[in-house]
């Protein structure tokens, strides 16, 4: 298991906290809450090691689209980047609704 941390200098508002997904094979769970400070923080625990650059690329694209100061926790069990992006989008939608 690998733990990765990322920070983003974004300051948009997070209306509600959100939880999506399940830590099933090929899937992931996301907990999204307002960040305590005007930045976004992401903590990832993943079962597949060595893909730090891929995670960063996915998060770069996500925060370019949703520049919100969110504290995000990801518990990942081998989801593909496409699935990660889908769940991040779902978490963002749930947090806005």
């Amino acid at each position, binding site marked *: *298991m690998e733990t990765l941390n990322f920070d983003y200098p974004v300051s948009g508002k997070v209306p509600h*906290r959100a*939880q999506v997904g*399940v*830590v*099933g*094979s090929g*899937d992931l*769970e996301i*907990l999204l*809450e307002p960040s305590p400070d005007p930045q976004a923080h992401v903590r990832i*625990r*993943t*079962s597949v090691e060595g893909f730090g650059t891929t995670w960063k690329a996915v998060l770069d694209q996500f925060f370019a689209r949703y520049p919100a100061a969110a504290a995000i*926790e990801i*518990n*990942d*069990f081998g989801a593909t980047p496409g699935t990660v992006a889908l769940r991040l989008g779902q978490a963002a939608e749930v947090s806005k609704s």
Partner: protein
Amino acid sequence: MNPSETFELSPEVVALGTRRSYIELGARDRARQLLDPGTFRELLGPFDRLESPWLPMQGIVPQSDDGCVVAKGAIGGKPAVAIALEGKFQGGSIGEVCGMKIATALHLARTDNEKGITTGAVLSVESGGVRLQEANMGELVLAEIYAEIVALRLHAPVIAVVAGMTGAFGGMSLATALCSHVVMTRQARLSMNGPEVIELEAGVEELDARDKPFIWSLCGGAQRFATGFADRLVEDDAAQVSAAVVDLLRQGVPEVFRTSMIDLFLSRLAALDTGRQWTPGDIRETWAKGGAR
């Protein structure tokens, strides 16, 4: 979403478009479904972050709720607690945290009953049994769960819903069997030993774990209902599952628990001629005549 132009389609197909699948729901949505609308209040939810401390030590990614959702609310207007296991997280297996969530929820329901507030419980069971990575604690907490079910069921119904696709195996199959009532779908399975374990122990000639129709004929919902181990057989329809649970809660504590019918089950076993191969159909015929209640 409904297909347009339903005039050519059979009622069964139209129903497919309108019914809500219960099996497709995750644990949280199942607990929400089982409680009356608007009454769902989760205890120790994801944001409380009560995870397994043991899984990360073994390099396994935990889930924020340890694969178990506990919610307080109402069913049919009466107080109830809903407990749902997430079959997709580590096979719904029982570890220290999720086991204690179940045991404690049942315990709190019992103390409410003892104070005079009749509180039932419904368990959505999707579990392979004890979590091997937390083996000893899993066994211990299962013992607590059994004790709580046995104590609680004297006060109010404890209803197990086994819907699939994980089913109820291992130690959680026993917990299911201890409940006042068991609701199953056809897709669900209820069995102590898993097919793979049986094949490993007894050989593929005895049981081929890949032979799905055979497996379901032994321990699938239809067979369990027909032989008296399940009390209701429902379609994969959230409304039907809820209706069955509401109805069973309304019926109250049964006069006799299945687990107390020791003479009945012992005599059934004694009457089995082990000299010949019995088929699932034989068992249905022979045991249904007696009936479980």
